[in-house]
């Protein structure tokens, strides 16, 4: 896996679909992948995890408020009403689970990655800027609770 290709992206898609289904009870329907230099997400809350090892970059899980509330309510088994500290913590943990699952899939392909602890960004139409020279691939999803997207900004380590 010498360059950014579908092989780098598919583990994150697989992980997101699996974790969101089993933990947040959202069946995801994948939309069309988009390659962007800098990714602007017109959503309200994003969990972001840094990646190092044989590839360097980040993965972000981004939600509109409505989808975030539904996902977190399902995840913790209690209804949440808005984006508060408990909601952002849960979004961070969902992102952590997706990154961890993807890391395991890469490991099975003999690609070793390390993941950071999650950060969560809240704000309408916020922008996640990739490092210069690191392309960002956005994968939108639809679910019964609304839209969400993952963004993978990754390049092979030198």
């Amino acid at each position, binding site marked *: 896996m010498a360059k950014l290709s579908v092989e780098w992206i598919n583990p994150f898609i697989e992980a997101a679909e699996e974790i969101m289904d089993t933990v947040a009870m959202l069946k995801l329907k994948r939309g069309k992948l988009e390659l962007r230099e800098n990714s602007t997400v017109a959503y309200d809350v994003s969990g972001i995890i840094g990646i190092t090892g044989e590839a360097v970059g980040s993965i972000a899980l981004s939600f509109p408020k409505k989808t975030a509330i539904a996902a977190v309510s399902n995840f913790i088994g209690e209804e949440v009403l808005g984006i508060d500290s408990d909601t952002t913590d849960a979004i961070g943990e969902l992102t*952590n689970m997706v*990154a961890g699952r993807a*890391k395991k899939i890469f490991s099975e392909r003999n690609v070793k990655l390390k993941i950071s602890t999650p950060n969560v960004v809240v704000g309408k139409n916020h922008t996640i800027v990739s490092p210069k020279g690191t392309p960002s691939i956005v994968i939108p999803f639809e679910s019964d609770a609304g839209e969400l997207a993952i963004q993978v900004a990754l390049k092979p380590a030198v």
Partner: protein
Amino acid sequence: MKIITVDDSSTMRRIIKNTLKRIGYGDEILEAGDGKEALDVLANNSVDLIITDWNMPVMDGLTFVKHIRADSKFDDTPIIMVTTEAAKEDIITALKAGVNNYIVKPFTPDVLKDKIDTVLGKKD
């Protein structure tokens, strides 16, 4: 049964606490947000079981486990690591550091009960 759950995510601590209560291990549950905070809590408390995350700020779970295993007070205290770090080499690293058993998030209540019963010697 006194248990400490160590995780930087308040959500995960809440889920683990609720799950422990559901499976009959909810008598007394202490909490800490990272390894260092857990060492501070354990300086004044003994516990029957430690459940810790790996990936935490300040002091990660692996460093925390090494500190615990270096303390004669906690030589025999069972440790279960509950984390997303599911790669095979990570599991080996955790076991070598002194973790008794390992659960990959997400997990079901049955899996947590099974792992606890195993480390407490309640099943083969």
